[in-house]
């Protein structure tokens, strides 16, 4: 019968329909569904690695970890008992900020992963922790888990050097995707914490387990162990750092203290300082607000993130340039009567020094001498020697966001300026006394000056002294790098002589840095400041080194708007040297008696 045929056709169509449906799911989309079934049954758990500590050169711990407790809930397991568990939890935690609505909100936002822990409270106080532990059996789905929090035992000591950690941002995560970093990780945001973040963080541990639909554990699959971060030792000396910070605490400015013969940074101070304990996972919002609103801009690390005119400190660069090129000798004299005419403009000097040669010119910081020298050298040579000593380029210090500064030249001006591209002699004159377009960071300046007092070795600044190592990186000491500038030792000696006079001569501009019983050499610098056309108090520099012959320490002090370098900066440098030498004497005594 024909109807049987029709019926059979319907049956056949139905079968083909089902077969093609199956082919779609199992063949075409099979791989994708297989992946989904794997995602269902495999749960991955990750374990954070303890962050490496940061120590100073004496082994004092500047950045550490402490254990804290957080309360987490598993939304799916709490759901059935929500009505009594949540209020009980709130009562036990006793935190005014933690409300029923907040917890509800967190649960809702986790709806895509109902079996994953959601942390509702960090940094639990110990007695709250004890209370919750006691009642855990009554609160299924609630767990208290320990986690590590970064701690800075000395708060603001070397704040800019150490930096701080914070939650990884979307942008950072985007760049670092595929590596060890997770969406919710802490990452170094500034300072050493940022520069060496990968060494400090170690590596996460992972555990893959098979689970049933209700989240019950079936068996362990793969496991990779946690690798704790490596500890780091810095070149910083906590005593010197504290001294220097205290000395600068009432001012805006910078101070760097280094070991002259190794380039190790003993102290790096930017004032106002930062209390890095205010940052991190549970930041002190009040303190942060103050920092953001502070017109003194505490976030700027003035040793590397701000560049200024070096003023008369720059004269030592001119000195080596003049001697090395033969334009001057130790006997070359210029006449200073307080004024100097360049291109119709009058340039001044601090006093009327009469006939001066190099050493005197340095001792009294005679502008006229150096105007003359500068014009003889020409801006290109001055630029050449500036760059040779590391000015106008990033020093390569292991801190982020370093500024380059500016070393001007006719070439530079041509590229830089749109309108007046000509280089004027007046600009050469200003360049010669460390003003005009020239800009340096305190860090660049100390290393440049240091190269002139330690026999011509221009060191690359570094803060890292030693890496303690872990499975990922071998323990090693970080060697210092320097470039030998091959200056004539006799020339260097002359300059040193001049700098000795600066401090020890009664006419020396840096006589206030004199410390009885110790030899200190140095150079002052004073920078005129104009703001919105109005004259502000001068900025002051003081570069010092001690002892004279084979210097062990170099110091640079820069104070904003507090007047000439020979006053406050020099006095501060003196205090710092006093502290350093005292510490050394004490240590010698200690070693002798033990």
């Amino acid at each position, binding site marked *: 019968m024909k109807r049987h045929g029709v019926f059979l056709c319907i*049956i056949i169509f139905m079968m083909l329909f089902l077969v093609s449906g199956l082919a779609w799911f*199992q063949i075409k989309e099979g791989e994708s569904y297989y992946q989904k079934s794997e995602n269902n049954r495999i749960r991955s758990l990750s374990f954070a690695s303890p962050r490496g500590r940061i120590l100073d050169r004496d082994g004092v711990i500047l950045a550490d970890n402490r254990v804290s407790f957080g309360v987490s809930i598993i939304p799916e397991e709490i759901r059935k008992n929500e009505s009594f568990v949540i209020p009980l939890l709130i009562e036990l935690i006793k935190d005014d900020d933690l409300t029923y609505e907040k917890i509800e909100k967190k649960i809702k936002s986790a709806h895509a992963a109902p079996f994953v822990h959601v942390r509702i409270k960090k940094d639990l106080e110990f007695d709250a922790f004890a209370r919750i532990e006691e009642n855990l059996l009554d609160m299924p789905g609630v767990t208290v888990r320990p986690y590590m929090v970064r701690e800075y035992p000395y708060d603001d000591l070397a704040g800019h050097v150490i930096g701080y950690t914070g939650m990884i941002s979307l942008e950072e995560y985007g760049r670092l995707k595929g590596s060890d970093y997770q969406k919710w990780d802490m990452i170094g945001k500034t300072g050493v914490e940022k520069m060496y973040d990968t060494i400090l963080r170690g590596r996460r541990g992972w555990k893959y387990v098979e689970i049933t639909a209700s989240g019950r554990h079936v068996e362990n699959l793969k496991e990779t162990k946690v690798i704790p971060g490596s500890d780091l030792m810095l070149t910083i000396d906590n005593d010197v750092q504290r001294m220097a910070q205290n000395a600068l605490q009432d001012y805006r400015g910078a101070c760097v203290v280094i070991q002259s013969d190794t380039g190790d940074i003993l102290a790096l101070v930017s004032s106002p300082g930062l209390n890095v304990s205010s940052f991190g996972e549970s930041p002190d919002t009040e303190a942060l607000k103050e920092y953001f609103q502070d017109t003194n801009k505490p976030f700027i690390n003035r040793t590397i993130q701000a560049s200024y005119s070096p003023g008369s400190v720059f004269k030592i660069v001119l000195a080596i340039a003049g001697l090395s090129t033969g334009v001057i000798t130790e006997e070359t004299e210029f006449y200073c009567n307080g004024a100097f005419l360049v291109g119709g403009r009058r340039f001044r000097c601090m006093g009327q020094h009469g006939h001066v040669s190099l050493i005197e010119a340095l001792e009294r910081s005679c502008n006229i001498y150096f105007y003359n020298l500068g014009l003889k050298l020409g801006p290109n040579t001055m630029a050449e020697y500036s760059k040779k000593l590391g000015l106008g380029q990033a020093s390569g210090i292991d801190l982020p966001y370093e500024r380059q500064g500016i070393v001007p030249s006719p070439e530079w001006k041509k590229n830089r300026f749109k309108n007046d591209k000509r280089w004027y002699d007046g600009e050469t004159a200003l360049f010669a006394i460390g003003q005009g377009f020239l800009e340096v960071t305190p860090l660049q300046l100390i290393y440049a000056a240091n190269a002139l007092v330690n026999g011509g070795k221009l060191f690359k600044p570094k803060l890292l002294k030693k890496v303690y190592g872990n499975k990922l990186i071998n323990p090693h000491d970080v060697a210092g790098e320097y470039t030998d500038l091959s200056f004539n030792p006799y020339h260097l000696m002359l300059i040193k002589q001049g700098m000795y006079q600066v401090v020890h001569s009664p006419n020396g501009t840096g006589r206030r840095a004199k410390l009885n019983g110790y030899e200190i050499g140095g150079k002052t610098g004073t920078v005129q400041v104009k703001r919105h056309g109005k004259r502000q108090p001068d900025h002051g520099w003081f570069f010092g080194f001690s002892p004279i012959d084979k210097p062990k320490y170099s110091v640079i002090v820069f104070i904003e708007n507090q007047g000439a370098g020979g006053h406050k900066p020099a006095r501060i440098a003196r205090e710092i040297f006093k502290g350093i030498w005292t510490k050394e004497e004490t240590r010698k005594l200690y070693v002798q008696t033990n």
Partner: protein
Amino acid sequence: MFKRIDWILLLSLMALLVMGFAVLYSAAYRMEFSDVTKNYFTKQVIWVCLGLIAVLLLSFVNYKSIGNISVILYLLNVLLLLYVLFLGTKIGGARRWISFGIVSIQPSEFMKLTLILCLAWFLSMARGRENSLWTLVVSLLITGVPLLLILKEPDLGTALVLIPVMLTLLFIYGLRLKYFIALILTGLLSSPLVWLILKPYQKSRILVFLNPSHYQYGAGWAVIQSKIAIGSGQIFGKGWLEGTQSQLNFLPERHTDFIFAVLAEEAGFVGCVLLLVLYFIILFRGIKISQMARDDYGKLVACGIVAMIGFHIFVNIGMTLGLLPATGLPLPFMSYGGSFLLTMVLSVGMLMNIYAYNSHY
């Protein structure tokens, strides 16, 4: 005697039963039962044995004799349905079972077969009245009464089965096509009304079908997990007892509604095609037997049975693939369920019976 056995049909049935055992064993593998009597697998085996014994006994009776008492069977079954409605065991808000201690039976399942037997008998008596409205009306009544009773339980899926069964019987009977067009039109026009009558959970089934991911953590969960199970089986499957969706509890109702997904995950495309081929053989043989039958009753019963089994296969597998909304219809010879299994085995037994009594000259 052996010539009277449709070997192809019998062997296919055996193969299906064996497959069914294997799949159900896997589905129940990690389930916990308080004692052996409650184990799904063991219970299913017992039901199969009972069914096969019943078929054997049945073979001594000519199906036409059954035809003579089909009205009585029908009425008895309707009475059971009434009994269920008022005194049946209530499980999950529905009254569908009569329990006798360890065993419970579902009258609505048997109704599928008894309706075929009764309606086929009526139509075989109505030769020559293919053009009569009267035939249609009585057929609707015969189908409608149990349908409404089953609907009341409530059990929408089972009730729905009766409709294609009735349509197939009328079609093979030879009812004029104009009546079919009328029926289809009436069906389509009344669907908005039907929507209103539907209970909320039945409505939600349709909504979930249309957009399962929207109900991902509620009603849509099952069909999403089912698709994952089926798809992840790929071509060769993950291996017997090795299906992660099934064994780790991601797939709900894996011993009943979604048993096909267990097969698909563990035996892959190959296993599914094998199953469909076996099913097709049974349906094909059923139609052949219908053609072979010399009396109207045999013809009609055979096609009715094919329609019933085919509809279950289509709706159940369609649902596991998310191609049709959930109806709760089980998969023949696979899903756990005593009454249903028995009905299916008896149905095939009927086919064999029709074959046996028509294969001599």
